[in-house]
Every structure is written in C-alpha cells, then in structure tokens.
C-alpha cells in the first residue's frame, strides 16, 4: 500500500513537490518561530541571571524635606552598620554595601569619566561577576583603605588597559590607585552598562570621594533561591527595627531580581506561543493545499478507483490508499520542514547571539501536527474516493 502511494506520488512529481512545499513552509515557520521565541526568552533570561539570580538590592527611601517628598533613593537612610547587621542574618550568603560617585580616571595618555564604586570583596559574588585578569581586592584592602582599583571591562578597554597593565598605577580624580584586576564583561542591561565602572574599597571611597557613613545601595545575595521571600521579610523586619520606622512608612525599598526574571520568562513564553500560533496558520494553509490536491486527484482517478473496486477493492482499501498518499506528503513535508525550520532558528540565534535552543518537544509536536494535517485534510478526499459507486466510476471519462 505504501509502495503504491509512493509510486503514485512519483508519477506527478512537480505537483507532489508543490503540495509538499505548503507543508514544508508551515512546519518550518512553526519550528523556526518557536525556536526564535525560545531563544529570545533564553537570551533575556540569561542576561537577567547575569545580574545575580539570588540578588536583592536594598535602596534608601525618598528624602523628606518638610512636606516635600523627594525621589526614591534620594535619602541617606542606609548605613554601613545596616549592612553589617544584615550580613549576620541567617539565610544570607553575602552582603555588599556600595557608595558611588563619578570620577575622572587617567591611565597614561588615556582618560575617561566613569562611575567610581566603593564596595567590599563580596561584590563579585553578590553581583555575579567573574574576574578576567588579576584579582579582586581583599578584606585587608578595605580594612586599611588601600588605594587599589578593579576596572569594569568597558572602562579597561576605554583606557587601553589589558592584562599586562595589572600592577600599573592609574589616577582617579587625581589620586593614584594601583590596578589589581579587570572584570569579565557581562553585556549591558538597559542604558547603564555594568561593565563601565571603577571599583575601589568602600573605606577608600569614603576617605577620598564621598565621606560620611551613608551607603547608596546594599546588595544581598540570598543563600537559597527558594527562600527569597523569607529573606525579604527578615531584612525588612531588621531594618525597620534598626531605623525605628513603621511598616507603612518604610525608609528603604527592596528590589527582587527573581521577580523581574519570572516576569520576563512569562512574557517570553507568551511571545513564543504567539509566534507559534501565527506560524500554525501557514501550516493550516499547507493542509488545505493537500486537501485541494487530493480532491483533484480523486476526481482524476475516478476511473482507476472504479477498476480497483471492480476487481475486489473494498471502500476501506481505497480509503487507505488515498490516506497513505496524503500522509506521505505531509510526513515527508514535515521532516523537511523541521530541518529547514531548525536551520533558520540556528541562523537567527547565531546572528542575535542567543544560545541555540533545541527543543525535542517542538520537533515531536511538529511531526505530530504534520501527520495530523495529513489525516485531517486527507480524510475528506479519501472518503469521497472510497464511497464512489464502482458502476459510475467505471463509466467516468
């Protein structure tokens, strides 16, 4: 039966190929668009994870001058002691207080203006940075307010500094610092690049640039990603007690990276579904193409059907013959479509720089759908063929 279908399809190759093309385009676009959707989601998720998945960022609340409420983060309510207190809490892996200012950095004949961030050695762990060259400064550097600096990848490039420059002296705001390390680039998230900064010990930053005991931000790395809500609650209670404020008038806020991540993931999933849905329309059109050709084929081969019935074929034999033809077209078309679709999604992912997502579920679904298209759109013509009256069919010219 299968052999019969193949030989019949072979006798009208161009028609078979064109019919198949409908299915190929349909399946390929489903596979490609779903792949691209998943790739895009994966890309965004990967970048967000680059920020540190277990990261909580604590910022001061708005400053109040009389009755005027300032912008969020404008007050100076967070202190070094807050950070120390938070580090002592259970379930917290690491804490890094940050102060920042803008600084004019000079290295030899090159110069740039960048963010000067004062922090502690916990910074790379909390913010998920890796060191490309050299080392990050240690606790001793913080304890002794040493003038050492770690540069972001972009800043280092701007200043023309490479791994060979470790140990060199550069100046920040006219103060000489020793370069001890360069961070691995993470790529930008939004308008502010995390790779463009000069990182120095927080004590040194206070001594030379910002002064006082206040902290701009505290980054907290939670030990267990599932305990983020609990950690948020504990931090809130602790800071509330320390600052002597009520729950309705908090002078700080906690930003949750995981929340952002899940929002983006669900947006990505919706996007993939939407793209897949649009692509399914072309698959549907491909299916209608099969039905159309099969109907024409039944009409053309009416006499053949009559002969087959006269020599003993039952309705179901004829049904099977035409159904197998439709299925063969849709299955072969489906397989080619998957290959084309995967190629397209790999190309797009490569160009966009996303990880290539190879989802076996998508492939199985595509095979299933192309078979389903064959059955659904093949049944009607095949039934029409099976029901032909042999006497009428034999006389058909």
């Amino acid at each position: 039966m299968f052999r019969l279908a193949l030989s019949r399809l072979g006798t009208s190759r161009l028609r078979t190929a064109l019919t198949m093309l409908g299915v190929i385009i349909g399946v390929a676009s489903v596979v490609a668009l779903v792949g691209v959707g998943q790739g895009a989601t994966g890309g965004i998720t990967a970048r967000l994870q680059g920020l540190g998945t277990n990261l909580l960022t604590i910022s001061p609340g708005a400053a109040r001058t009389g009755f005027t409420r300032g912008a969020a983060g404008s007050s100076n309510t967070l202190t070094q002691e807050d950070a120390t207190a938070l580090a002592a809490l259970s379930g917290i892996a690491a804490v890094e207080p940050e102060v920042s200012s803008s600084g004019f950095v000079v290295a030899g004949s090159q110069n740039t203006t960048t963010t000067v961030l004062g922090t502690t050695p916990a910074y790379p762990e909390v913010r998920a940075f890796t060191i490309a060259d050299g080392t990050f400064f240690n606790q001793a550097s913080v304890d002794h307010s040493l003038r050492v600096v770690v540069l972001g990848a972009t800043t280092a490039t701007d200043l023309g500094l490479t791994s060979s420059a470790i140990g060199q002296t550069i100046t920040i705001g006219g103060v000489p610092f020793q370069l001890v390390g360069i961070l691995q680039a993470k790529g930008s998230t939004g308008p502010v690049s995390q790779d463009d900064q000069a990182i120095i010990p927080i004590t040194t930053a206070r001594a030379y640039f910002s002064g006082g005991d206040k902290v701009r931000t505290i980054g907290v790395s939670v030990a267990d990603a599932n305990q983020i809500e609990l950690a948020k609650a504990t931090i809130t209670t602790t800071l509330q007690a320390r600052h002597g404020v009520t729950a309705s008038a908090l002078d700080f806020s906690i930003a949750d990276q995981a929340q952002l991540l899940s929002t983006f993931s669900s947006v990505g999933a919706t996007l993939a579904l939407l793209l897949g849905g649009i692509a399914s329309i072309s698959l549907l059109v491909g299916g209608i193409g099969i039905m159309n050709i099969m109907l024409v084929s039944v009409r053309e081969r009416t006499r053949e059907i009559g002969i087959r019935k006269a020599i003993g074929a039952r309705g179901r034999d004829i049904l099977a013959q035409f159904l197998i033809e439709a299925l063969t077209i849709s299955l072969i078309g489906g397989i080619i479509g998957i290959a084309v679709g995967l190629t397209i999604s790999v190309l797009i992912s490569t160009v966009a720089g996303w990880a290539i997502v190879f989802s076996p579920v998508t492939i199985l679904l595509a095979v299933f759908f192309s078979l389903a298209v064959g059955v659904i759109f093949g049944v009607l013509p095949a039934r029409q063929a099976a029901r032909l009256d042999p006497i009428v069919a034999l006389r058909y010219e």
Partner: protein
Amino acid sequence: MTAVPLAPELLVGTPLIELRGVTRVYSTGRLEVPALRGVDVDVWPGEFVAIIGHSGSGKTTLMNIIGCLDRPTDGTYRIAGEDVSSFDDDGLARIRSRTIGFVFQNYNLLPRTSALENVATPLLYQGVGRRERLERAKAPLERLGLGDRLTHEPSELSGGQQQRVAIARALVTEPALILADEPTGNLDTASGEEVMAILHELNDEGRTIVLITHEAEVAAKAQRQIHVRDGMIVS
C-alpha cells in the same frame, strides 16, 4: 417462469448463478425507470453463456447485478450458493474479489502500471503479500503469450495485448466465474477472434463464462444464448 434450456450434461448440483424474479428500478427524481422486470437466470458450472440484447435492453444492468457491482431492487440472486441480494458494499467487494473475474470492453487496465502489476492487483485486495502476488501474476500472463511483456505499461501494448492482460488479471484469482462485457467490442477482427478463442479454451478447461454482447455473431459462439429485451428474458 420460462425454464431456460440447459446442456444436459451440466444438470448436476446447484447452479453457479441463480437469479429469481430479479427487478431493478432506477429512480431519477420523480421518474421510476424499470431496467429489469422479473428476470430468472440459471448458469451452471462449466457453461459458456452469452447474454445478448440491444442497447437499452437491460443487459448492462443484468451484467452489473451478476457481477455484484449492483444490487437488485427486488428478487433474489445467489452466486456460488450465497444469497448476495442484501449484501453490503464490503460483502459485494468480497464476492467480486473471490468469485468473479471481469473482462471489460475497454480493458480497464490501471494506467502507468506494468502488465505484471496490473495482473497482480486483484491479489493485493485478497491480502496476498507482494512477492507472492508478482509470482502468481506471471503464470497467467505467460500462458496468454505475454511472457515478454511483463514490464510493459498498457499504453505500450496493442488492444489485443491489453485485452489479454485483462483476461490474465481476471484469471489470477482463479474465480468461479469469468464475466466478459463486450470483450471484443474494441478489437479488430483478428484480435477479437483470438480473444474468443482464449475464452473457449478457458471454458474447455471447465471455467464458467458469461459473455455480454450485442453482436449475434459473437453470441453464436457460446453454448447457449440468453436474449434480453425491454428488461425481460425473451428466450
């Protein structure tokens, strides 16, 4: 009921074909057109019977019913002992597959299909495996002198050769009945005589043959003639 004269030596056992009071009425909208009005036919195993009649006489309708392509409106039809009058489509297909071999006026071979595949096709619908089908299809073709034409497609064969392929196809299932509808109608005289000779040869081997024709000359070569006129058997 007019008893049809029979060759005496065949009056044994039961008839292969037994039609009793068979009518066939075609309904076209409001009009009811009777094509057969109460026909009795008996064909005994080993007979060579010609059904003769002009166009419009009802002989084609009779052939369709005998060939299990159609059902009688009324009356009973038994073939090889089975009452098929009320069989469903699948049941009739089974009888066509097992019991009847068709030879048509216009050959009705499958286009773009080799002679061997054509002859093997009835076996496909009996569920015979491909290898065995092709093996069994060879014998009747070789017997009819087409051993060197196995891979030829119908369009590459002459009319006489095509009709011989069709006869081979009718023979491959070893049917009890060969039903030939105007088998010489499209052939030149020589090929026609050749086909008739083959049918006679098959009859000599004991096969039952029913031939439908409008030509008295062709009918005359059968052992017995059944004349159909206006949907009735006249002799």
